[in-house]
């Protein structure tokens, strides 16, 4: 009865095993198995979230071993929220993926679903675990599967993009591992709560400082924080669209989650903001990241590439908010994990629909799309409004918290960068809308005698429903952001 925390992670893992085995008998079996696995996982995540809200942190001991020796799953409000987010996004994307996998990687559909499940296992495990080394192993599971998935994409460019992603990903993970090694030298423990308790008496130690810096740099590489971002655009834009839809919203956001977890649970606020005084330096870095991401996005001619640079810009928001060192900033950063995952997901779902119909999403190919794919474009417009930050979509509220935090701390440059980048996003998306809405093919004008009939060619219904659902959720989450902040984020930060 009390096994929901582990079911979240174990069911997709078992489903991956069976999906791989079933493919030997009958290729078509692996899709329903994957679907069932993720459905159970999502249901368990929901149960866990409800229980954590009702009765506080859950500690789950693997095989009954007590924490400092055994591995522990410690699920508090933040974990529970991210687990719910990851499992539901992965589940919804799987429903939408059936048609696009059929189209893009038909000959390797079974292996796609198997690796997809393993990727989700990694993300869920990273979020649930309370053990530093376990976290490393699960990060590597996520990364290895995403290298393989990226390579499944564009036959010409994806392998090279994936190989570059491996080189940088390995450096990132290794830095994190090295940091954990130093923490272990100082504390002799790997359990997060235990390490944090022992660190109380080692605040000035240079070993702890080294560990902290190594862990942070490792995670920044993994989350593509601005100067360390070079792997992300190619890897995400050449991967199969069914995978970029799940990796773009989740991977970087889960890495942000780990950073926040290390900052709050392991090293502690006092160490970072009172002993080290790193806050303003990192907020400056985040400011540069935001501006650089937005400006590089302006230079792109491909819709998918443009969106990957917007992800880099959003990473800057969250890192800046988390390092602001006040409660408002952390609230904004955590709320933005949720909102950014949802709006990136909505955006990539719409892009996936477009890719399904027209292979190449160069901006110049998008002419007349409002007529051809009205529902998809409606979803895209909502997602774009949320990324720009138009109320009442959810993107507005987290940006509002971040701006308030910046003013409270006096980091005006961060607030300015946030507003400028929102304006640049507005320019970017209105340029897309203009191309899609006003520029129609010249052929239509010649043949349509003053009354051109545009034929509607929409994506399959399964993809449309998911896209619509997620886009509408942007407004719902926006309207309920007060509730989310009051029931989940503020009690967590107390």
């Amino acid at each position, binding site marked *: 009865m009390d096994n929901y925390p582990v079911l979240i992670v174990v069911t997709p893992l078992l489903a991956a095993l069976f999906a791989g085995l079933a493919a030997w008998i009958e290729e078509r079996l692996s899709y329903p198995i994957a679907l069932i696995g993720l459905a159970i996982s999502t249901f368990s995540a929901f149960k866990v979230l409800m229980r954590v809200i009702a009765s506080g942190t859950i500690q789950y001991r693997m095989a009954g071993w007590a924490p400092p020796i055994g591995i522990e799953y410690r699920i508090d409000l933040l974990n529970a929220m991210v687990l719910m987010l990851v499992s539901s996004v992965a589940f919804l994307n799987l429903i939408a993926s059936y048609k696009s996998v059929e189209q893009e990687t038909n000959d390797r559909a079974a292996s796609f679903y198997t690796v997809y499940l393993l990727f989700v296992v990694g993300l869920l495990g990273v979020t649930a675990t309370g053990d530093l*080394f376990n976290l490393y192993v699960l990060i*590597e599971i996520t990364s290895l599967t995403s*290298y393989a998935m990226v390579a499944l994409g564009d036959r*010409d460019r994806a392998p*090279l993009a994936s190989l570059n992603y491996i080189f940088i990903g*390995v450096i990132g993970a290794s830095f994190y*591992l090295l940091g954990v*090694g130093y923490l*272990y*030298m100082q504390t002799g423990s790997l359990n997060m709560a235990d390490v944090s308790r022992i660190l109380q008496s080692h605040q000035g130690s240079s070993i702890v400082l080294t560990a902290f810096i190594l862990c942070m740099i490792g995670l920044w590489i993994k989350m593509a924080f601005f100067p360390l971002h070079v792997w992300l655009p190619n890897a995400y834009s050449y991967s199969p669209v069914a995978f970029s839809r799940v990796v773009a919203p989740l991977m970087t956001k889960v890495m942000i989650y780990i950073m926040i977890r290390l900052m709050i649970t392991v090293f502690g606020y006092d160490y970072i903001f009172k002993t080290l005084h790193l806050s303003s330096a990192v907020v400056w870095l985040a400011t540069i990241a935001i501006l650089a991401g937005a400006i590089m996005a302006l230079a792109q001619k491909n819709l998918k590439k443009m969106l990957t640079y917007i992800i880099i810009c959003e990473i800057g928001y969250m890192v800046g908010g988390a390092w602001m060192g006040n409660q408002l900033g952390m609230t904004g950063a955590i709320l933005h994990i949720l909102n950014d995952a949802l709006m990136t997901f909505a955006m990539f779902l719409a892009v996936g629909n477009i890719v399904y119909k027209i292979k190449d999403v160069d901006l110049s190919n998008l002419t007349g799309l409002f007529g051809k794919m009205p529902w998809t474009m409606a979803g895209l417009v909502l997602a774009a409004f949320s990324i720009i930050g138009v109320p009442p979509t959810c993107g507005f509220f987290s940006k509002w918290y971040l701006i308030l935090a910046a003013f409270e701390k006096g980091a005006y440059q961060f607030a300015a960068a946030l507003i400028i980048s929102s304006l640049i996003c507005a320019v970017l998306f209105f340029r897309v809308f203009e191309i899609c809405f006003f520029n129609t093919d010249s052929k239509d004008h010649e043949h349509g005698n003053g009354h051109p009939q545009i034929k509607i060619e929409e994506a399959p219904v399964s993809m449309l429903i998911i896209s619509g659902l997620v886009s509408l959720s942007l407004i719902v989450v926006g309207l309920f952001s007060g509730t989310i902040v009051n029931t989940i984020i503020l009690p967590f930060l107390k």
Partner: protein
Amino acid sequence: MTDLLPLIVAKYNYWLYVILMMIGLYAMIAKNNLIKKVVGMNIFQTAIILFYLSIGYKKDATLPIVEVGHEGQEAVVRALDYINPLPHVLMLTAIVVSVATFGVAMALAVRIYQRYQTLEEDELRMRLSEE
């Protein structure tokens, strides 16, 4: 300057791992051939494995297997006599991870070679910009 030498000698294991790590990093950044880069990556990971192994070591200590004393009685276990096995066990997992990464990277290199007939990065870049 006189203090530096004892520092290096006393903590030579750390210096060794840092040097190895830098060799790996250099290969990953500066080499032109993709296979050399992959090998550099492997050296980088091995350096970290060696770091972990060295932090578990103690002077004059032995393997953590508890010996049974005379007449079936267990000897008193003194932690000082045994090296710390935990970092070594952790590295078993890390070795698996690094082998898996190496495998994926090699497979990708094969794919790239099949497509472009070269593994030199500058030639690849030229081919990509031509298309």
